[in-house]
């Protein structure tokens, strides 16, 4: 599909020539200056790895939810089936549907990019749900601006003002002062956002709400963040690929996308100023920095925008897997624990190449310990150790 889209873009460029489609520059890392993005940002040697592979696992698991981690889940499912035999069928239908289907019992495992609300927990009717962080996902400002490559600098209030429709031109003084060396064109900014409700939107708008007074004042306090907001301006596309498609087409467009999609589509993307005042390139290592010092004891925020760590990328979200703590079927419970234990150890190594951040050691240890709480009809599934 992606290849087809690239081909089609190339075709249009060839056929239409001057019809407005411009070949996109690939994101070159040099544009970001000195960053810590060489590494993965994780310390796997500090991970907990105590869980043995439990016998008697079900051959199949059904899972559904967040489209943000769709690419990650498909790699995990594929690798896991090859190594351990249990097939995991993951449907990337959206975080909200993932929560709903897990609660309804349609799927054994759900995935969501936003922490569960008390309203959602209440729908489980008293049964306890475990929400386990499995990976970090970065939401990045991506754009299409002829003559401008990757690495454009943004801060929260400028991004907020752009997406609120208050900054309308690329050569606005606010953008120029953030990017002193660049000749920004005198062109309209075309905002592109999501048409569907989405965890990606929730992470992005949570970040804007925490950092941009302009954004909050335009949308109104209490209405400025969530999976859907009332966008004051712009075009909307369905899904990450819908937004990516519009960005590829419209010169002057800016949107927000999950990092894995940006890397896959070779769209130019920017860097974002964090709480320490530095401009940070989104990558697994900088996402990991944003999650430094965070543990499961407190309710995690939707975006880790308030991290005061150096090199922390602020528009970082946490993806959670959801399951009932008490399962009705022992084979399913065993398969779930085996799969989750694998994802939280071996699986973490597969995250950085796709543009996802592995968990910090602290978050991994907290999460891993929760696996011992899974029961089947009241009886513990894993040997307590």
């Amino acid at each position, binding site marked *: 599909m992606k290849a087809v889209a690239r081909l*089609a*873009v190339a*075709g*249009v460029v060839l*056929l*239409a020539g001057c*019809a*407005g*489609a411009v070949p996109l520059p690939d994101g070159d890392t040099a544009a970001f200056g000195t960053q810590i993005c060489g590494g993965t940002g994780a310390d796997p040697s500090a991970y907990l790895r105590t869980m043995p592979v439990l016998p008697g696992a079900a051959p199949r698991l059904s899972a559904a939810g967040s489209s943000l981690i769709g690419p990650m889940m498909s790699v995990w499912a594929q690798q896991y089936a090859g190594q351990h035999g249990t097939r995991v069928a993951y449907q990337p*239908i*959206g*975080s*909200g*549907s993932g*929560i*709903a289907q897990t609660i309804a019992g349609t799927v054994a495992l759900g995935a969501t990019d936003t922490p569960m609300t008390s309203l959602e927990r209440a729908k489980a009717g008293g049964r306890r749900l475990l929400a386990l962080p499995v990976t970090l996902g970065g939401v990045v400002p991506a754009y299409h601006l002829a003559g401008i490559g990757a690495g454009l600098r943004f801060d929260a209030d400028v991004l907020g003002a752009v997406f609120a429709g208050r900054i309308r031109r690329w050569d606005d003084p606010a953008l120029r002062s953030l990017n002193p060396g660049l000749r920004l064109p005198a062109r*309209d900014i*075309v905002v592109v956002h999501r*048409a*569907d*409700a*989405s965890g990606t939107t929730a992470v992005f708008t949570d970040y804007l709400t925490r950092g941009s007074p302009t954004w909050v004042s335009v949308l109104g306090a209490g*209405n400025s963040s*969530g*999976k*859907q*907001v*009332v*966008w*004051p301006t*712009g*075009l*909307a*596309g*369905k899904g990450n690929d*819908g937004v990516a*498609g*519009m960005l590829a*087409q*419209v010169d002057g*467009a800016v949107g927000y996308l999950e990092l894995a999609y940006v890397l896959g589509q070779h769209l130019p993307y920017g860097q974002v100023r964090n709480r320490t005042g530095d401009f940070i390139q989104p990558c697994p290592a900088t996402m990991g920095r944003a999650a430094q010092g965070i543990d499961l004891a407190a309710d995690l925020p939707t975006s880790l925008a308030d991290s005061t760590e150096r090199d922390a990328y602020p528009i970082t979200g946490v993806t959670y897997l959801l399951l009932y703590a008490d399962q009705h079927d022992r084979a399913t419970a065993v398969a779930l624990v085996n799969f989750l234990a694998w994802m939280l150890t071996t699986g973490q190594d597969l995250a950085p190449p796709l543009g996802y951040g592995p968990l910090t050691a602290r978050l991994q240890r907290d999460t891993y310990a929760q696996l011992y709480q899974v029961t089947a009809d009241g009886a513990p599934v894993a040997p307590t150790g």
Partner: protein
Amino acid sequence: MSLTLKDRTTRSMPEPAGSRQRHPADRLFQAAVHAAAWLPIAILGATVVFLLVQAWPALTHYGPFSSLGSIGWAPSRAITESTSPNPYGLLQFIYGSVLTALIAMAIAVPASIAVALYLTDVAPRVIRRPLAHLVDLLAAIPSVVYGFWAIFALAPTLRPLGEMLGRTLGAVPALGAVFAGPFYGYSYLTAGIVLAIMVLPIITAICREVFATTPVPRKEAALALGATRWEMLRMAVLPPARAGIIGACTLGLGRAVGETIAVTMVIGNNVTGINPSLLAPGATMPSVLANELTEATQPFHLESLFVVALWLLALALAVNVAGRLLVRRGHREPR
């Protein structure tokens, strides 16, 4: 029921000689055809009932017609306790559906009639059939392909044109609002043009059939009276075909109002309000359904999407009934 039916059939058609008792296979066939005839009606009825049941919580919570009285679709503003104002306003979707369909018809109807006339009366005989097949082939292209084409070819091509319209007509006092820029390629106009191309083969095919039924002596009479070819078409072919053309338009309009994917891909999906400019992004009733059905988690969100579906069905039925009435009037009028 079965008795009256039998009576009627025996009256209208004598049974084959030598078989007073009807063959079981014959009875079976009749029952099957009978059931098949009722099937569409049952499906339509069941759909209406299903949509009503699903939409009921939203209809009772906000009031049955409140969605028609408000502009702007804002699921994130929905609060379980609040009943007014209705955050799920759908006037902008009705506007988008009607506007894109009208743009489509404005382009497709004259073009289709011209194509059909060319195919039946003007084109050299050898190319009529292959050309007609080619036009029919347009109807076989899946709508997602049209959407794809529109994004990658139509929208970039329209952009300079739209920008020019915005600069020139957009500055004219009254007309300006209709062509006000900026234009990004995703708009009511783009969606309307894609729809026009999609309904063109439908309207053309029916018009062609209708024009082909014009009796040859009638055409010859017109020509014999000294009519030019154009006058012949205008006097002998077009007037009796009026009802048929209206019927063709109705079918095309139905398709245009209901088309989902291609429109969703190019209309820009602005759900917050009505923009009078043809060059602005908007949304239609099917497009919001396609975008939001999978992830409708706000209070009364899913139920309100069913309200949209209900009104979409109502609009489609209204288009059909109106078309039928027009066809009937067209038949009655003296030629």
